[in-house]
C-alpha cells in the first residue's frame, strides 16, 4: 500500500509495519471492532424500539380520534329535547351549509380587507407570475406572513379552480417528461423548500404530484398550502394535489392546523378555515400517470373501484368524522358501521329528526342580513318550503337507494384516504387507525390488474428512509416529512418518474444540526421523546394498570414479577410493544429478585401536579386520558373561535361524553371540575389554558428527568 502522506508532525505507518503488524496489535484491532459493532447494534435496537413506540402511539391516537365519530353519532341519538343539549349539538354541527356557493363567495370576499402601510410582507397580484410566487416562497423562507387579504384572495381562486377539476387527474409523461411525486409534508416547510432546492420549482417541464397530508403537526402548514396553491394556480395542468386524510377540518382540530391558523390570523382565521374546509373537500382524490401508475394518499380496499370514484360528488365528503353532507337532512351511511367499529345504528333516528333540526339551523343561520335572499331557483325554494312544513314528497327526501349509494361512496373515499398495506392476504378493517382497512398483496394484485395498472404509489405512513416498497414491488410508500417524530427520526424522500415508469428516489433530511449529531446523540434524543410520550400513555391508564397488577398480586404484597408486569402493561395499553426490552427505561427503581414495586412505580408516573386544584384524582385521570378528544370537542363548540366556552357548555359536553364512555361522574363532580379549571375565575373556561394544564407539567417533568449532557 505504500506510505501514507501525513502531516509532518504525525505518525506515519511505514510500509514494513503493515506486514509486520504485531499479533497483539491485530488482536487489539479485532477486539475494538467487535466491541464497537456490538455497541452500534444496541443503538440500532434502541432506535427501532423508539420508532415502534412513536408509531404505535400515533396510530392509537388516531384511532382514539376517529372514535369521536361514534361520540357524535351517539349525541345525535341521545340528546334530549332540552334546549341546552339541542343547542350544543347544533352548535357542534352548526355548519350545515344551507347556502349556495355563490353566497359563500360573497362571504369570503377579500376586497374589503385593507392592507396597512406598515405591512412588510409579500404582496400578491393576480394573475400570478413566476416571480411573484418565487417572492412568496422567499418571504416564507424569511418567516414572513402573508396578509389575510392575499390569503383569502389566493384561496378563493384556488377554490374556483378546484371546482373545475375531476376526481381523478390523468397525467401523461408524454414520452419525455419526468414527474416528481412527493408524500406527506405535515407542515414541514423546510422539507418542501429542500425539495424545491434539490429538484427545482414546479413548471410545465417539471410537473409535480403532492400526495396529501400537507397540514397538521408541523408549524408551517398554512405556508405550505399557500405555496402549493400558488403553484397550482400558476401551472394548473402540471401541479397535482391529492387529498390526504389530514385535509379534514375535524382532524385539524386535534392535530394543530386549526390552532396554527387561528394563532397566525386572529381576525380572519375563522373565515380562512371555513374556506379551507371547502377547498379540502374539493381536492382531487387521485392521480393516474400514463394510465399505469395510480397515486393516492392512503391506499385501497378490495372494493376500490375507480369508476365509482370518478363519478361521485367528492365535495359532499367534508370530513371523515361527520355525516355526509346533504342539502337538508343528515344521512349517515349505514354500512360504514363496519368500518368504524361497534354500535352505530343511526339511520332511522336521523331521518326522523331531520326536519325539526333543519328549521332550527335555518333560524340560527339567519346570518348575513345582507344575504337574506339565497338566490335559489324557484323549484329549489319550493322544495325547501315543503320540507320545512313537513310535507316533503318522496322525491324530495333521501330514498333508500340514495342512502345505499352514499354508503358505497363513503367507503370508497374513506378507504383511499385511510388504509394501510399489510403483508398477509385479505382485507380487514383498520382497527388501529379507526378508518379504512388493511389490505394485502392479493388485493393489490386484484385491484391493480382489474384497472390495468402496474404500480400504486401512496403515502400516509412514515418510513425510516422516506420510502418503502411492499407487495412484491407493486406498492410504494413515499413520505416527505423528515424528522417526523423527532429530530433524527427519519429521512424524507421524493420520487422522479420518467416515461419508463421506473421510480427513482431522492432522500433528504432537514436541519443541519441533525447531521452534526452523532448516531448516539440522535438516538438518545429521539428516545427520550418517545419514552416521554410512553409515560404519558401509561399515566392515562393508571387505574387500569393498578387493577391489572393486583390480579397478579393476590396477597397484596405490592410486588410483581417483571414477567407479569410486562404482560399486564400490554394487556392494558394494547400498543404491541416489547415491554421487557423497554423496561430498563421505564422502571427506575431497582428490582430485587426480579420483582418490582408497582404502586411506587405507578405513582412515579404522575404527570399532573396536585396544584391544579383538582382533588378528584380518578376524574383527573379520565380527563387526562381524553384530553385530546376533549380539545377537539371544545373547539367545535367554540364556533366563534373565541377560545372560551361557558360552564354550561363544558358541563353538557362532559356529561354527554362521560355517559358515552360509561364512566360514572356526578353532576357535582363535574361542576367542581369546571370551577377548578376556570383559572381566571370569570365563569368561562379558556380552552388553551385547559390544555396548558397538561402541557406545563410535561415540560416540568422533562426538565426534572433529562439526564446530564454526556461529555462530548
Amino acid at each position: 500500500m505504500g506510505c501514507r502522506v501525513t502531516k509532518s508532525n504525525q505518525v506515519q505507518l511505514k510500509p514494513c509495519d503493515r506486514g509486520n503488524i504485531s499479533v497483539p496489535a491485530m488482536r487489539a484491532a479485532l477486539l475494538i471492532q467487535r466491541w464497537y459493532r456490538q455497541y452500534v447494534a444496541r443503538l440500532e435496537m434502541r432506535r427501532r424500539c423508539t420508532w415502534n413506540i412513536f408509531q404505535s402511539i400515533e396510530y392509537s391516537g388516531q384511532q382514539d380520534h376517529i372514535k369521536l365519530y361514534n361520540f357524535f353519532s351517539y349525541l345525535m341519538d341521545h340528546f334530549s329535547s332540552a334546549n341546552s343539549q339541542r343547542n350544543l349539538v347544533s352548535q357542534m354541527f352548526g355548519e350545515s351549509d344551507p347556502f349556495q356557493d355563490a353566497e359563500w363567495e360573497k362571504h369570503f370576499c377579500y376586497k374589503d380587507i385593507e392592507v396597512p402601510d406598515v405591512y412588510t410582507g409579500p404582496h400578491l397580484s393576480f394573475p400570478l407570475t413566476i416571480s411573484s410566487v418565487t417572492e412568496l416562497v422567499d418571504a416564507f423562507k424569511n418567516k414572513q406572513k402573508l396578509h389575510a387579504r392575499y390569503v383569502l384572495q389566493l384561496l378563493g381562486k384556488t377554490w374556483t379552480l378546484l371546482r373545475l377539476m375531476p376526481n381523478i387527474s390523468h397525467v401523461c409523461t408524454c414520452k419525455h417528461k419526468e414527474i416528481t411525486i412527493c408524500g406527506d409534508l405535515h407542515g414541514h416547510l423546510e422539507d418542501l423548500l429542500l425539495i424545491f432546492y434539490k429538484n427545482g420549482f414546479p413548471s410545465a417541464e417539471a410537473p409535480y404530484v403532492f400526495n396529501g397530508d400537507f397540514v397538521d403537526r408541523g408549524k408551517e402548514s398554512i405556508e405550505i398550502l399557500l405555496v402549493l396553491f400558488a403553484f397550482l394556480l400558476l401551472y394548473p395542468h402540471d401541479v397535482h394535489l391529492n387529498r390526504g386524510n389530514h385535509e379534514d377540518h375535524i382532524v385539524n382540530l386535534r392535530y394543530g392546523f386549526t390552532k396554527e391558523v387561528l394563532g397566525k390570523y386572529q381576525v380572519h382565521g375563522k373565515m380562512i378555515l371555513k374556506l379551507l374546509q371547502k377547498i379540502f373537500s374539493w381536492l382531487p382524490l387521485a392521480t393516474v400517470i400514463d394510465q399505469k401508475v395510480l397515486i393516492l394518499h392512503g391506499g385501497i380496499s378490495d372494493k376500490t373501484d375507480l369508476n365509482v370514484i370518478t363519478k361521485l360528488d367528492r365535495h359532499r365528503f367534508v370530513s371523515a368524522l361527520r355525516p355526509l353532507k346533504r342539502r337538508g337532512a343528515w344521512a349517515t351511511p349505514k354500512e360504514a358501521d363496519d368500518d368504524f367499529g361497534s354500535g352505530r345504528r343511526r339511520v332511522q333516528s336521523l331521518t326522523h329528526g331531520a326536519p325539526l333540526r333543519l328549521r332550527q339551523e335555518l333560524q340560527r343561520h339567519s346570518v348575513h342580513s345582507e344575504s337574506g335572499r339565497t338566490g335559489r331557483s324557484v323549484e329549489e325554494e319550493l322544495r325547501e318550503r315543503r320540507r320545512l312544513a313537513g310535507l316533503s314528497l318522496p322525491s324530495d327526501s333521501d330514498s333508500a337507494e340514495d342512502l345505499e349509494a352514499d354508503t358505497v361512496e363513503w367507503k370508497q373515499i374513506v378507504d383511499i384516504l385511510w388504509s394501510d398495506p399489510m403483508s398477509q392476504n385479505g382485507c380487514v378493517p383498520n382497527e388501529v387507525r379507526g378508518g379504512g382497512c388493511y389490505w394485502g398483496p392479493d388485493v393489490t394484485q386484484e385491484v391493480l390488474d382489474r384497472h390495468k395498472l402496474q404500480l400504486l404509489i401512496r403515502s400516509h405512513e412514515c418510513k425510516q428512509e422516506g420510502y418503502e416498497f411492499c407487495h412484491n414491488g407493486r406498492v410504494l410508500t413515499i413520505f416527505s416529512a423528515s424528522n417526523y417524530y423527532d429530530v433524527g427520526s427519519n429521512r424524507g424522500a421524493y420520487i422522479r418518474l420518467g416515461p419508463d415508469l421506473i421510480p427513482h428516489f431522492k432522500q433528504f433530511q432537514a436541519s443541519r444540526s441533525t447531521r452534526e449529531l452523532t448516531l448516539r446523540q440522535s438516538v438518545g434524543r429521539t428516545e427520550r421523546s418517545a419514552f416521554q410520550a410512553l409515560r404519558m400513555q401509561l399515566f392515562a391508564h393508571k387505574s387500569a394498570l393498578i387493577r391489572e397488577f393486583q390480579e397478579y398480586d393476590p396477597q397484596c404484597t405490592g410486588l410483581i414479577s417483571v414477567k407479569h408486569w410486562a404482560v399486564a402493561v400490554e394487556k392494558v395499553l394494547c400498543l404491541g410493544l416489547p415491554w421487557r426490552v423497554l423496561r430498563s427505561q421505564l422502571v427506575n427503581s431497582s428490582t430485587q429478585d426480579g420483582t418490582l414495586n408497582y404502586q411506587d412505580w405507578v405513582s412515579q408516573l404522575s404527570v399532573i401536579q396536585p396544584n391544579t386544584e383538582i382533588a378528584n384524582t380518578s376524574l383527573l385521570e379520565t380527563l387526562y386520558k381524553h384530553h385530546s378528544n376533549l380539545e377537539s370537542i371544545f373547539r367545535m363548540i367554540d364556533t366563534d373561535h373565541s377560545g372560551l366556552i361557558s360552564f354550561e357548555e363544558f358541563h353538557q359536553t362532559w356529561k354527554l361524553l362521560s355517559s358515552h364512555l360509561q364512566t360514572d361522574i356526578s353532576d357535582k363532580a363535574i361542576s367542581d371540575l369546571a370551577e377548578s379549571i376556570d383559572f381566571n375565575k370569570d365563569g368561562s373556561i379558556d380552552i388553551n389554558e385547559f390544555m396548558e394544564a397538561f402541557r406545563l407539567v410535561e415540560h416540568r417533568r422533562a426538565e426534572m428527568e433529562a439526564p446530564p449532557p454526556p461529555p462530548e
Partner: protein
Amino acid sequence: MADKYNAENIITETQKRISNAFDVFDHESNKTVDVREIGTIIRSLGCFPSETDLHDIIAELEEEEPTGFVRYEKFLPTMTKILLERKFRPITEDLLLQAFEVLDQQKKGHLEPEELTKYLTQEGEPFTQEEIDEMLSAAVDPDKNVILYKDFVSMMTFDDTR
C-alpha cells in the same frame, strides 16, 4: 427465593428475551426477520460475536435455499444455546482500554485519527467507511483532533450501565 430460579425458569426467561428482541425486527409480524438483522438481534441480547462468528451462525440459520429471511423456529433454539452457554462474552471496559493501549505504540496517551483509521480499516475484520466515520465522529476530541481513548472508553461504557 432460590426456588424461583430453577433451570426451567431461566430458560423461559431467556426465551422471552429472545422473542422480544426478535419481534422488534419482525416487521411483517409473521415470525421472520431479514437475515441482515440477525447480527443486530444477537448483539442486542448482550453477545459480542465477531463477523466470522456471525457468518457461521447465519449459515446454520439459513434455509436450504436461502430466502433472505430467518424463521423464528430456527432462531430460537440456536440463540437459546448461545445465551445459556454464554458464548461471545462481553468485552469489559478494562479489556477495551488495554486494546487501545496496545495500538498506542508510542504510549502517547492518545491516538491520531489516521492511526486508528489505519488499524481499524485494514486489520482484523475491517471497518467500512461508514463505520469508521461514525466512530471518529464520537471519538475524536474536536479541539485537539486526537482520540483520547481513556475518556472515550469511559464515556462509551457509561451507557452500558443504564
